[in-house]
């Protein structure tokens, strides 16, 4: 069972990383508007204006 002494701290570190990443995303406006960005990739083209 000694493997637990390695795995559990490892899971704790990963958990901390996950929380940190989520906080970063929230603070960088990734969750402010969940409706608009869904449409962006559908027609994302270089908008410098290549002919249609």
């Amino acid at each position: 069972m000694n493997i637990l002494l390695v795995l559990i701290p490892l899971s704790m570190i990963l958990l901390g990383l996950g929380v940190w990443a989520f906080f970063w995303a929230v603070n960088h406006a990734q969750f402010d508007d969940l409706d608009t960005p869904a449409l962006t990739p559908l027609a994302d083209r270089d908008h410098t204006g290549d002919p249609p």
Partner: protein
Amino acid sequence: MNEALCFHCSESIPDSVVLSAMHGGKSHRVCCIGCAAAVEWIVDLGLADYYRLRNEPASRARSRLADYSIWDKPGFSALYSRHDDDVAEACVLVEGLRCPACSWLIERALRSLEGVHDVSINVLARRLVVRWNPARIRLSNILTALARLGYVPHPLQAAALDAVSQREQRDALKRLSVAGLGMMQAMMYAVALYAGAFNDMDDNTRDFFRWLGFIVTTPVVLYSAQGFFAGAWRALRAGRLSMDLPVAAAIALVYVASLVEALRGGGQVYFDSAAMFVFFLLAGRYLQMRARHHAGDTVDALARLQPALAQRRCGDGRYEQIGVHELRVGDVVQVSVGDAIPADGELLSAQCFVDEAMLSGESEPVLRGRGAHLLAGSFVTEGPADLRVRAVGAATVLSSMLRLVARAGSEKPRAAIAGERDAARFVAVLLTLTALTTIVWSVIDPTRAFPAALAVLVVACPCAFALAVPVALTRALTILARRGVLVVRADALETLPQVSCVLFDKTGTLTDVNASSVQVQTREGTSAAEALACAAALEGGSRHPFAEALRVAATGLPTRSAASLVQHPGAGVTGTVAGVALRLGRSTFAIGDEAEDTSALVLADSHGEVARFQIGEHLRESALSTLSGLRTLGTRVEILSGDAPTRVAVVAAALQVTNWRARQSPPEKLAHLAHLRQSGECVAMVGDGVNDAAILAGADIGIAMASASDLAQARADIVLAGNDLTGLLLAESVARQTRRIMRQNLHWSMAYNVAAIPLAAFGMVPPWLAAIGMSASSILVILNSLRIRIDPPLPLMTSNRVAIA
């Protein structure tokens, strides 16, 4: 569709207009120069995909762009934007922003402007935040670009950038995530402990897992649950009992008890229960908060009534245009006809008519004499008016009203309040039972006192009870919003199933106006074009569908300007064009009481009739199916219209409505409403006009179309986006489901608690089983609420276009 619709805005194109725009290699007809310019610009920017992506037509573009240069004045930029070295930032409310494609278009169009750094748009709140380099582009250029696309920009004060709701939402999301992750970890360690209890885990390993549970639960209790402790502390200091108090007590008790158990190395620990409790409560509150923010956006509609500009008299008698924020008490300002009064003040002119509908609900303009007190936000309908400023900014009546509305928006719906009250009572009973269990067990067998008390507390955790109503309400609001039915006041969902009678306005609600079929008959010696130009000038400031039809019909004709305009709601308008006093409206209003009552709009001067206009309208496609759907549900339907009896009769016959009233003035409509309500009916009113605002507010439920005036929308409980009447049926069916599900939820959580608490009190439920029972009951409530859904679409009954007149 047998008539041409504008490619850009989907309004019908008057026959006299021959304009087109190129898109995708084809030529499409458009209704006006503004729309043609908008299409051309959008295609030029390489944004032609907008027309493929959008799901709602655009607003009609304006041919004449307003002058936005005043927004560049230093006084304005200090108030409306925020500067940081070479980056300025402003928040703009965008009227006409309707769908994600709009936001895509605006974002691309603005980014293509030289000097704009960044644009971010929130469709739900209809706001955009733009960051730009003031050395290379000015705010007025950005606003003009928005106006060219057909949107109406309203810059908001810089304070709007610190969106309170955004901060609140981010904060809640972070706390929720910590609680969720903490809960999962704590449960994992708890499972190991329960498994270990059956397999003789040695004490060291057991303690190791207990302390792991402690480590992951601590941030959940100290960070995520902070709000409950703060709320409980506030309530305690104020000497009140709030829902937070028992919740905080339960969290603290379970956490501290587990810590004590872990320290002395005996019995059981319940860190997982504490974390799960916090998570479910936070999840419920998060959903509620989202619904509240959504509703709060309507406050902006009222805020827009507050004008940003004012005409101040300088020392030399001239007038200068300044920002409202620059006004001081004692200044003299002039307000021209049709404009909103910028600040509370005292009238200096001899007299004027003002429309205070927004503040008093009185739809008729009222006469004010010299010295009278005028209120900011009301409109001058006959003037102009000079006034001396008595109160500015936050001191005005309008501001205090905005604060009221903002507060109303954050108030909880009645159902949720009732739910919380029941829950609080329930918690009081629960705490008593826990105390009782402890006392009785410590007499019989002190070693079992603590586990039994804890089991009672955990098994009967009030989350299912507290979640029963808000989860169901939130689910209902969300799915309705997705289908374009915006429930502004959640109370409306509760009232809707009780509605026994629905009143419909006709023009603009049941019917759409065809601007293309305006027929003009004129007196000899007057040309149709001349009459149309005069009528369009008189209707210049009105948002009635007929007025808009006249203006569209007059596109391309030489523009006239009208003076001393006075609106007579429900009758017509008077004014002077080129020195001739004209009356436009129903025939009895324009010519006199002896005139024959026709369905046409009549334009008359002092000698009698000049011209009459027959404006065509057709039934909305959704009208027939909606009305027959309502009748199937057993709801009575009536039509209340201000229009002529002949036209109302046609619509009523087409829709098989037997109860209809024509030529109704707003007070008559209100009287009829009051009569219906007195006879015990629960009445919903569907309307769109400024003149319907009072009756929308007076009905049990007011429902406005999305095209309705801001005022009507501000007074409505439900707004139907996309002008689709079938939304009404959706709302009705969802409201009925919601009511049923809320009752099931409440009954279930009650039954569960009544059954489980005695077992726990008698020491027959080990705490781990209690924790499972508690979470199962919460999950059941949530899953049950998710059953609320929109039924498969009704078979669409396509009504043939019924043309009227």
